[in-house]
């Protein structure tokens, strides 16, 4: 919807200034570390200094002697208490039909530590200072074992886990291998490429934290934690780890300072803290310092890939073969198995009509931090493969990279389009985004800009990425058949209060996305109730229905759709009440902008009047329950498919290798947009993270498994002066299967931008290959011909 069509200044489509901002800009946010409870203790974890070591014994006597120390609890204590392992939520099967090989994953290491930073003991004390001091005095007896670190070598290295040969969790495949082989046999041209997708460390600005408490009187546990999905946390802690039964466990995710996927997962720390709080019968707070975040937050990406693209005489893509080795780290994190498989292989068709695609993925264990979903989760990796190889093919064939893409794109009349890798795209107009992006970047003027740069001893390059993503994983039945351990619906509840104000409960958690504003816009729009009268409540298992939470850009498409359906139920019931009050039949009552209107009359009742009547049911239908509330569990019929074109323009300083991103254009199709201000902000942030991957960020382990990039001084996060202003726009093809016509915008920026930036840099370098991140040293060496 364009802004011109917006009906009100707070409804769907309006750039409403965020209501949550007031607390954040005045310092009144309520993050986990801002919360304290009387008598609380402080937890500090002891972490393995070795990438792989047997734990023979842990001597806690000196630590326990430190003044203020209340307890030292070890992994062995958790095992002795009968606590279960941390589960992986997606069972992936190998191509031979066998189940994936899952390594045991105790919350704290009990017998063997498998990566640097893995916790093996929790010190609990009256102050953080005492806990830290005592943690230094916990004396483990380790036998250091050979660590497996190098991803490419891992299948041929020492076996980490008994029974898991070649360190392979699975060998997964998708697509028609024989048909793809035939396509390559007939190809007029084959382009090959070898790629690495660098390991990233998410670095949400708020480190992970938790505050666990146990109330002996009620037997209830309460855990405040930095979570994107508190119900999932509760489910795992009760059903799998068995800390407490689900109805005695309340998880609250208050204000959360960014997630980007890293706060989806169920980690050792909150698990150990809530368990320990029950043992010592006092609240315990743990806050990660940034060094712990680097070591123990789930990392992202980390693939090695060989890909080949077959083309016919005209430049049409006829086949794509991809073989990827994906690093899963030392353990299968909550969704770690699904990221390089179902969220990766299924996206390899991109925006193109490539008829034959075959992908094989080896999921490999190494003695490094677990790898799981990070902004985009599999889809940036897929886009990187497709868009690097397509750009390379264009260069080899001497074709304009925009033209080669255009001639292979799925066209608007082709939808719904079934890809050879299991997805059915519902709608899109890929050329529309490409055309607008070419216009914004002034593609025709590139050669002149390139010539001007050359005068300054700069090489200017331009690079494209036409990406597709799949958001709002769905439907539940399909996902569960493919191995997901949970459904993929979302819950929503609308309560019209007796005075006409509205309390809305959503299972989607907001940790920067602005749900409190956007969701209020949606409900206001659907019910004709003033935006100011609507409160959005999220992030507390004690207040709302079971929910799946926030990941995969699903909040509005799934959580927002749940609220639209709940609003529909409110209106249906309201019609019955209004009809009774107006002495008419419900089918003769229409609902329009907050008014129940009797057809062919001047009679109308406001939704507030109807709500009041529902709670004071004197003049009220006999067969109707009092109250005006509605709940929905919305299960999407399909994924949504945002798509777009990103174009990067860079200048490389020939003498120093310093590369400057001088221009970046993103044109995205997110379907209808509820709040353009927020959508643009999501794109900015996503692009910045993608540019970070392409040019700056790299999580590096040395050969012994020590993390070399374990602080913000060593791991290069994008800073303000690393980035340009971004030039962004949107095109619209509404999603066909959800009631808002929305697709999701959270990850697109991080999906398209890495390939666009690297394509621009390799263009500037005369098609010399460069791996991410394209640091000045790498670029300089490439210029020097090394």
């Amino acid at each position, binding site marked *: 919807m364009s802004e011109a069509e917006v009906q009100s200044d707070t409804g769907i489509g309006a750039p409403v200034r965020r209501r949550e901002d007031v607390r954040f800009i005045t310092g*009144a946010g309520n993050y986990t570390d801002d919360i304290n409870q009387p008598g609380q203790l402080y937890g500090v974890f002891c972490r393995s200094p070795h990438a792989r070591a047997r734990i023979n014994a842990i001597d806690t006597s000196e630590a326990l002697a430190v003044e203020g120390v209340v307890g030292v609890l070890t992994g062995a204590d958790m095992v002795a208490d009968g606590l279960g392992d941390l589960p992986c939520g997606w069972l992936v099967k190998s191509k031979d039909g066998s189940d994936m090989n899952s390594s045991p994953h105790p919350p704290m290491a009990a017998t063997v530590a498998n990566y640097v930073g893995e916790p093996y003991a929790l010190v609990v004390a009256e102050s953080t*200072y005492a806990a830290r001091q005592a943690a230094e005095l916990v004396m483990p007896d380790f036998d250091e074992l050979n660590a497996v670190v190098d991803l490419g070598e891992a299948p041929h290295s020492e076996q980490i886990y008994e029974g898991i040969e070649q360190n392979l969790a699975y060998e997964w495949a998708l697509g028609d291998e024989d048909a793809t082989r035939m396509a390559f046999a007939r190809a007029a041209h084959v382009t090959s490429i070898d790629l690495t997708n660098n390991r990233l460390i998410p*670095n949400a600005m708020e480190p992970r934290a938790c505050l666990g408490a146990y109330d002996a009187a009620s037997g209830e546990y309460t855990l405040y934690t930095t979570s994107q999905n508190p119900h999932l946390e509760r489910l795992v802690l009760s059903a799998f780890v068995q800390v407490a039964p689900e109805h005695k466990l309340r998880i609250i995710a208050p204000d959360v*300072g960014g997630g980007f996927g890293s706060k989806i997962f169920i980690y050792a720390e909150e698990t150990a803290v809530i368990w320990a709080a029950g043992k010592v019968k006092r609240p315990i707070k743990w806050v990660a310092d*940034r060094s712990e975040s680097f070591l123990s937050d789930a990392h992202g990406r980390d693939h090695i890939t060989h890909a080949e693209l077959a083309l016919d005489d005209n430049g049409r893509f006829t086949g794509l073969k991809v073989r990827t080795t994906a690093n899963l780290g030392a353990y299968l994190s909550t969704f770690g198995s699904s990221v390089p498989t179902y969220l990766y292989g299924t996206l390899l068709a991109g925006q193109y009509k490539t008829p034959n695609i075959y992908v094989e993925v080896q999921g490999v264990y190494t003695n490094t931090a677990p790898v799981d979903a990070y902004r985009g989760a599999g889809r940036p990796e897929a886009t990187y493969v497709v868009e690097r190889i397509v750009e390379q093919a264009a260069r080899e064939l001497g074709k304009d990279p925009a033209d080669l893409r255009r001639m292979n794109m799925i066209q608007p009349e082709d939808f719904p389009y079934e890809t050879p890798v299991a997805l059915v795209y519902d709608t899109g107009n890929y050329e529309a985004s490409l055309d607008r992006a070419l216009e914004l970047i002034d593609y025709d003027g590139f050669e002149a800009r390139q010539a001007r740069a050359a005068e300054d001893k700069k090489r200017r390059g331009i690079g494209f990425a036409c990406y597709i993503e799949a958001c709002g994983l769905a439907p539940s039945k399909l996902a569960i058949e493919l191995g997901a351990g949970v459904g993929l619906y979302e819950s929503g509840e609308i309560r019209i209060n007796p005075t006409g104000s509205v309390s809305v409960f959503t299972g989607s958690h907001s940790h920067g996305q602005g749900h409190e504003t956007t969701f209020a816009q949606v409900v206001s729009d659907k019910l004709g109730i003033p935006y100011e009268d609507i409160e959005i409540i999220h992030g507390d298992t004690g207040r709302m229905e079971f929910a799946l939470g926030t990941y995969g850009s699903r909040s509005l498409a799934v959580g927002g759709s749940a609220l639209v359906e709940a609003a529909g139920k409110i209106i249906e019931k309201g019609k019955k009440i209004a009809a009774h009050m107006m002495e008419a039949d419900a089918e003769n009552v229409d609902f329009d902008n907050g008014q129940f209107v009797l057809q062919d009359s001047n009679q109308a009742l406001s939704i507030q009047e109807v709500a009041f009547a529902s709670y004071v049911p004197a003049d009220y239908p006999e067969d109707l329950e009092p109250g005006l509330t509605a709940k929905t569990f919305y299960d999407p019929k399909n994924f949504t498919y945002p798509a777009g074109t990103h174009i990067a323009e860079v200048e490389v300083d020939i003498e120093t290798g310093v590369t400057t991103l001088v221009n970046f254009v993103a044109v995205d199709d997110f379907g209808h947009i509820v709040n353009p201000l927020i959508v643009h*902000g999501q794109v900015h942030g996503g692009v910045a993270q993608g540019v970070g991957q392409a040019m700056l960020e790299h999580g590096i382990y040395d050969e012994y498994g020590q993390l070399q990039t374990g602080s913000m*001084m060593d791991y290069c996060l*994008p800073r303000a002066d690393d980035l340009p*202003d971004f030039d962004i726009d949107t095109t619209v093809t509404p999603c066909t299967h959800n009631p808002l016509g929305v697709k999701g915008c959270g990850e697109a920026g991080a999906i398209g931008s890495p390939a666009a930036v690297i394509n621009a840099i390799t263009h500037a370098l005369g098609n010399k290959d460069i791996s991410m991140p394209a640091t000045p040293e790498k670029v300089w060496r490439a210029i020097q011909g090394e």
Partner: protein
Amino acid sequence: MKISLTVNGEACEVDVSNNTLLVDILRTHLGLTGTHVGCDTSQCGACTVHVDGRAIKACTVIAPQADGMNVTTIEGIGTPDDLHPMQEAFRECHALQCGFCTPGMIMQAIDLVENNDNLDNRSIREGLEGNLCRCTGYHNIVRAIQSVADGG
């Protein structure tokens, strides 16, 4: 040790160990949780406050240094009903998402505008070098600061 300092215009006295960081004095001892801790290497800037009107990272000051200081935190520059122009600009320009870096970012931004003439896109970006944001890509933060620098 006992130290005295002025925070947001009020005289305060705290009894802390001498290795306590100013940011912990503010958060733990004075309950001013608007100032955040995002790292342990003085890289992120989430703890930026003003000391005698200039932005500093509160994780770089220890208790003996803080004695006698005049500190302003995010809680001291405006209220929901009477926002500082920089707070207003951050909201207007959607210059924050998760909000965690925001207090430090706003304190740094105020320092930038008050102590520099002719700020442009480049100099604003360079002036934010010590403050990390992972959500916004800085685009709207730069826009907000520029709007205040330009006088509205």
